[in-house]
């Protein structure tokens, strides 16, 4: 019965839950989905990471290559982020050339990496994307050099967190794809612990200052949680 209700009246279904300050997947409004992190799982890449956030899984590989620098920046390397939304992951995605969504995500990742503001030959793993169900994100980095291994130096460690706005008023942290389709707006905040690296709210319902503040505060809190998880994982692997 509940399933029929969910399919036929998804908004009403969610409202019933949100009245009681809980979400259909048993989470509180400000709670993230359980996060699983695996670093260095692709042996053929210079660095890699796999992140699972609930049913959203993103795998990211970094390949380093010697290349001619761009003419505008002769003393700097460059990074080409590429977000692939494979048709194997979800019926929302179609095979073929990158969709608009994939291009927008790639640009977002490019902006975040640019903000790291460091010289780079090859670089951080980082992403914002969705194989199985939703859009979500995380960060990671590692790197190798044939004989000596040089860890890539990153100037900061950006972590992003997303809030969805439901019915113009309720903020849902870390939305699933279902929540995201019902949402009237999305706010993504990327922080490095001290500063905001990127703030992205592409339209949607107008928010008050205090709602924006809540999103930013939650992002800083998330940064602490995620950094701890990252350190633990980095310590547990030996390279």
């Amino acid at each position, binding site marked *: 019965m509940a399933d029929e209700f969910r399919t036929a009246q998804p908004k009403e279904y969610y409202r019933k839950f949100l009245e009681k300050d809980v979400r259909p997947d048993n989470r509180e409004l400000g709670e993230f989905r359980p996060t699983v992190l695996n670093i260095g799982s692709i042996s053929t890449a210079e660095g890699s990471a796999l992140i699972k956030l609930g049913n959203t899984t993103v795998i990211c590989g970094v390949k380093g290559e010697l290349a001619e620098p761009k003419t505008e920046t002769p003393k700097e390397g460059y990074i080409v982020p590429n977000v692939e939304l494979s048709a194997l992951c979800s019926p929302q995605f179609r095979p073929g050339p990158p969709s*608009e969504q994939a*291009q*927008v995500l*790639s*640009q*977002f990742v*490019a*902006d975040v990496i*640019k*903000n790291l*503001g460091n010289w780079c030959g090859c670089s951080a793993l980082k992403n914002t994307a969705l194989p199985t169900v939703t859009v979500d994100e995380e960060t990671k980095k590692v790197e190798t050099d044939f004989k000596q291994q040089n860890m890539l130096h990153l100037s*900061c460690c950006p972590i992003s967190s997303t809030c969805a706005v439901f019915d113009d008023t309720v903020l849902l942290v870390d939305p699933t794809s279902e929540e995201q389709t019902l949402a*009237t*707006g999305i*706010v993504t905040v990327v922080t*490095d612990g*001290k*500063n*905001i*690296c*990127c*703030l*992205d*709210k*592409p*339209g*949607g*319902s*107008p*928010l*008050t*200052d205090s709602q*924006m503040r809540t999103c*930013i505060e939650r992002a800083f809190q998330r940064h602490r949680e995620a950094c701890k998880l990252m350190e633990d994982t980095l310590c547990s692997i030996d390279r």
Partner: protein
Amino acid sequence: MESGDGSSKPSLAAMTCVLGDLSQPDGSAELTHGGAVVRAAVYGPCEVKMSKEILDKATIEVVFKPKVGLPRCEDKSRERLIHDVFEAAVMVSLHPRSSIMIVLQEMENAEGLMATGVNAACLALLDAGISMKFLVAAVVCFVKSDGSLDLSPETQRGQADLDIVASLTFVFSEKDLNIMCVSSTGKYSVEQYDSCLHLCREASKSVFKFFRESLERKLSKSI
């Protein structure tokens, strides 16, 4: 749009616009703000491609044309932002199963191109007479390396200002001046974010005033 009192408070660069100068589109505008120039055209509500049809509301289509070359990822993300802003601002439920198309052509690129694009699109929609729930105004704010804020940096043509460490573009709705959209580049602290927000919100009032005056000027007739 200058503050006029000669104070050191950051103020917006001068804005000029030409409304309805294109004959084919239903509404058009060319907006110059500081060094950035964007031309916007609006078609609609008109027929929509079957694959893009939405049963209970109008489809907003946005095309952002760069000055040269083919649209890149950057332009796609601009398109998405403008699309999301106007999907919330335009009364889309008035025109189900139809299309409202916004075409933007970059004429001069300078700091704050995005904000100029949003404002030009808003003027073009007003010119086309599309019903909107509220007006939107975009303002861009720059954080300099010494921590000071600026709304209209003096850049030399074709040269990026190296002094700028971050830029934040805000889009406000006219109703209560709530935040419709934020997009940013560079790193900045939460305090800087707050002061940028405050500064941009104040500046957005003069943008709304500019919209009103431009439209009044266009619609008034000399007797």
